[in-house]
Structures are given as structure tokens and as C-alpha cells.
């Protein structure tokens, strides 16, 4: 499990546990003698308003912090030193350093990238939707983009660790979806 995945899982489990504790606590508190007013409104408006404002503010801060880190803006000011063309088809990946077309089907080419260089994957599909998911040597998903017919999605990435990276399909594309794969090397 990557650090990022571990952080996400732990964060989720803590929040889920917190929710469960609050619900159990409130459940156990019931049955005691009624101590609240009977107008069917519960908390007063000011308390609700502040809680709501606090939550909204927290989410906006979270959004303004995370949105700029979205993959669309990754390395957008740099120019890639390497372009890898990716064409997906039921049920294989073609990866090539040259544009893929009738003259260059791209299959069978071994892709070797340099550690730390900025790579741009130009990903498309020749039939249905596929998902271009890049997995590191420890089988962690590190980045992805969809492979859609008629469109080219550009994913920019710098690989920091050398090794063999796998490409798995992350959009259901038919019978052999689970075995559609490719790999490339980073030195």
C-alpha cells in the first residue's frame, strides 16, 4: 500500500469510527428523561448556522488546497522531454515513441524511460473506453487517465523510482478486461 493510499484509508476509517461513536452515543443517550423543548426543531438556528459555516469553510479550504494539485495542472509550465503514444484496443495496449497509425501499429515496442524526466503520455483508444492505469513495482496505482475513442488525454508524469511499471485497464471494456496489460521500464 502506498503512503497516499494508507493516508486515505486511515483518514476514512477514523472518520467512519467517529461517526459510529457519535451515533452509538446518541442512541445510548435516548430513553433518559426528556430535556429538550418539544418544538420539533432541536438545535437552535444560531448553533446550526455556525456548524454549517464551519463545515463549509473547512471544505472550501480543503478544495482550494487540493484542486491546484489536480493532474491537469501537473508540470503544466514545463515541456515534456519524452512523449509516449498510447493506443488502447480490446484487449491490448500499444505503446510507442512515435505517433501510432496505420504505418506504426506500435505493438511490441519496448518503452524505456529515464528516471526524473518529464514524460507525456498521449492516450487514446481505437475502439471502446479503456482506463490507462500505471502501477509501480509494489502494485500501487500511481496515476491514470481514460483512453477514449476520438480523444487524446495527456497525462504528464515524472517517475522517481527505477523499475518495471505495469499498465492495467481501469475501465470495463469487455470479456478480457482483467488481462489487458502492458509494461514499460524506468532506468
Amino acid at each position: 500500500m502506498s503512503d497516499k493510499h494508507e493516508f486515505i484509508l486511515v483518514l476514512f476509517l477514523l472518520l467512519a469510527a467517529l461517526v459510529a461513536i457519535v451515533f452509538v452515543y446518541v442512541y445510548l443517550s435516548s430513553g433518559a428523561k426528556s430535556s429538550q423543548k418539544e418544538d420539533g426543531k432541536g438545535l437552535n438556528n444560531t448553533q446550526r448556522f455556525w456548524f454549517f459555516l464551519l463545515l463549509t469553510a473547512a471544505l472550501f479550504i480543503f478544495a482550494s488546497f487540493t484542486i491546484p494539485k489536480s493532474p491537469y495542472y501537473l508540470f503544466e509550465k514545463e515541456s515534456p522531454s519524452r512523449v509516449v503514444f498510447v493506443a488502447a484496443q480490446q484487449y491490448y495496449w500499444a505503446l510507442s515513441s512515435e505517433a501510432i497509425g496505420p504505418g506504426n501499429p506500435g505493438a511490441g515496442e519496448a518503452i524505456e524511460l529515464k528516471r526524473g524526466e518529464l514524460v507525456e503520455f498521449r492516450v487514446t483508444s481505437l475502439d471502446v473506453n479503456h482506463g490507462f492505469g500505471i502501477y509501480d513495482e509494489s502494485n500501487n496505482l500511481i496515476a491514470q487517465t481514460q483512453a477514449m475513442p476520438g480523444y487524446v488525454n495527456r497525462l504528464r508524469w515524472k517517475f522517481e523510482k527505477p523499475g518495471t511499471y505495469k499498465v492495467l485497464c481501469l475501465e470495463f471494456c469487455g470479456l478480457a478486461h482483467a488481462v489487458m496489460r502492458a509494461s514499460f521500464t524506468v532506468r
Partner: protein
Amino acid sequence: MMERTTLARTTSIWIIAILLLFILSVVLGIIMRLSQGGVISQSPVVFYSQMTTHGFTMIGIWFVAGMVGVNYLMQRYVSAPVKSNIFALLFTIIGVVLLWVTTFVGKFHTGWTFLYPLPFKIAWAGWATPLFFVSLTILGVGWLVWSVSLLMAIFKKYSITRALAWQHFGKNPSFETPPFILITVITLIGVITCLLAAVLLIVLFFAEYFSSGTFVNDPLLMKNLTYFFGHTIANEMLYLGLATLYELFPEVSGRPKWKTTWYVALAWNCTLVFILTAFFHHMYMDFVQPESFQIVGQVASYLASLPAAVVTVFSVLTLIYRNSIRWSLTNVLYFMGVAGWVIGGLGAVIDATITNNLVLHNTLWVPAHFHTYNAMGNVLFSLAFFNWAANRFAGIGESGGANRLKIALLLVGGTGFLLMFYLGGAYSIPRRFNIYPMEFSLAASFARIAAVFAAVYLAAVLIFFWDILRKCLKLLTYSR
């Protein structure tokens, strides 16, 4: 006193049909997990046909379950439609039968998202593709007629501004819109909007199918339409369940009814807007989608969860906290459902953050969160309504005892099977894989453990079914 109206009879037929289909679909889910776990061996065709059936059936039945509850409770305020309800029942049965024929006989297996152009890359019986779209059309027509007639029934008594509770934004409103009416109207507008998107989507599919190659669709537009429909309907069905919660929860608990206030009105009116734009989060990994849509997607996903959730969760918690509550199976299910909904919502908000989506999209994290707010949220809302309605149909009151086993099985089974999905997501295991590649050494074990826990969940559902079935049959066989 037993209630013997046509609406009550129709409702009880719906309840039996929904629970039967639910049991079958849970069984399909368990079979798929067993297959992924290597306990049984299935061909990819069989696996993916089951996956398609499971997804469609679950979305369909829990949507109609919400509609059934809303339609039934509506008679407290307006003259509730009966004919369109029966019409929808017939069309749903025909639609589901045709759909199951395409998947089980025709081996149609595009997944429930049927992303364009997958339905045209025929790897199944040739007739299955057109029949699939015919079955969707039948379901769509039935549901559209039903939703429009429910909305019209409300508009006969409430003007559109009153139905949306806008008078609550002013000082001292002279008229109070019941929360049930407000939520139902907001939800039905969303339902009708997304069903219209589905109509457009199906028309575009048919246009290409019959054009013999002269008309070709745009994959990005089709994907947007698919998720506009699919995401929205999956969300709106939760709100239908919430509408029944607002109506029944205080009543069953022996507490005063909730009132619509300015912030309740505002929260639900905002929800109407956010819920229709949140679907963009399904397209984060389509980098060609305009960036503004992506950002709208993240912001709307955050905001969509806020008003409805905060208002509802607060209302439910403050109603119970240190109050004397008449606990019964109905309000316990609603209460647990709210907790499940919130926890699933947290998983969803995490995934709706674009930077997280980069490493979570289409891993098992996705089924993890939507199974949480469905299997442990929305399903419990509907089971709560079913239980309440069945008691009414059988002419018996809410009982407190003998429910611990059901609740324990639901909780243990649900938690265990969901946890395996979350762990799978954190381990980057892809979703919708019929077999797991060797690299994911834990994936098959997770699937096997999940199957065991899902069987425990199923045991709870079977007990519910038996109990509710007996009560509904009492009503249906009464006249004989």
C-alpha cells in the same frame, strides 16, 4: 385495522417484488465475490453478465423502492396517484424481465454504465443490444410517467413556489410546506431531469444503431449523458428514502413532527442545484473534459453532501439525544441508515477530490463507498418503510422485541463485506476484474472474506423478507 385500498395492495406487491429481486441480486453479488476469490470458476461471459444484471437490478429496485414509499405516504397530503403507480409496476416488471433475458439468455455484458460504444461491439447475441435498449425504454417510460404524475398530484394542491417552500425565506410565513412535500418535489424534479437525459441517451444510441454507419455519436458527450443519468438517479433514490424518513421517523419515535424552517428550505433548494452538477466527478480522469467542469464537479460534490446531510443528520441526532424515544425496528433502521449514508458519503467525498481520484478511480474504493450508502443506507431507509407499511397492512402495531438478531446480522455482515472493498481500494485493486492478477496477492482473500460477510447480510435480508412477506400476503389474500 387493516388497510385495504388499491394503493396499499399495489404497494405490498411492489414490496414483495423488490425484496425478491434484491435477494436474487445479493446472491449474484456473492457468486461474483466467490468467483473472484477462486472458490468457484466462471467464464468471463457469465461473470460479466451477472455483474451487469446485479448493477442494473440494484439501481432499479432501490429507485422504485423510494418511489413506492413516497407514493404511499403522499396520500397524507394530496390525492396520491394509483393508476400511474400500477402502470409503473407493470412496465418495471416487463422491463426487468427483458433486461434479464438480454443478460442471462443473450449474454449482454456491458456493465450497468453501458459506456458508448461498448454496446455496439457485440460480443453476445446480436438481438441482445436492441432488446437491451428496448428494455431501458420500457423502464424509462414507466418511471417517467410515474414521476410526472406524482409531481402533478402535488402541484394540484401546492403552487410551485409553495411546493419548493420559498415562502419560508421571508419573515413569518403564513403557510408551512411539510418537509415531506419539499423533499419529494426537489427529488422528483431531479428524477425527471435525469430520466429525460436517459431518453436522449437512448435516442442517440438508437439513431446510431439504425443509421448503418452514417450517424456516429461523440464518446465524450455520451459519457457525460450516461453519468448525468446514472449518477443522478443513484443519488436521487437516496433522497426519496430520506423523504419517507422525514415523514415517519419523528412519528414512529413518538416525537413531534419536524417543521420546515428557512434553513431546511434553503438546504433542499441548494441540493437541487448541486446534485445535478456533481456527476462531473465521474469524468475526472477524462482530461479532455473542460477543466471548469472538473472543478465544478469537485465543488458541487462537496456541496451536494452538505445541506441535505447536515440538516438531516442534525435533525435525527437532536431528535434522539437525551430524549425518550419509542424505539422500534422502523426507527432503528432509519437511524442506522443515516449513519451508513454519512459514512458512505465520507468515502465518496474522499473519492470526489480530484487528487485522490487519480489513485482511487475504478479501484475497489468505488464499489466500497457506493455499497456503503446503498446497502447500509438507502436499503435500510426502504426496509424501514417496508417494515412500517407491512405492519400497517397486517393491522398490527410497531413491536420492539425480537429484532436484535436481524440488526446484528445486518451490521456484522454489512461492515465486513464493505471493509473488504475499502481495503481492496487502498491496495489499488481494480474493480470489475473477474479474476485477479497474481500481483494482487490479497485480492482473492478479500473477495472470499467479503462473500462470507455478504452471506451474513443476506441471512438478515431473508429474515426481513419472510417477516414482511407474511404481513403483505395477509393483506393481499384478505378478500378471498
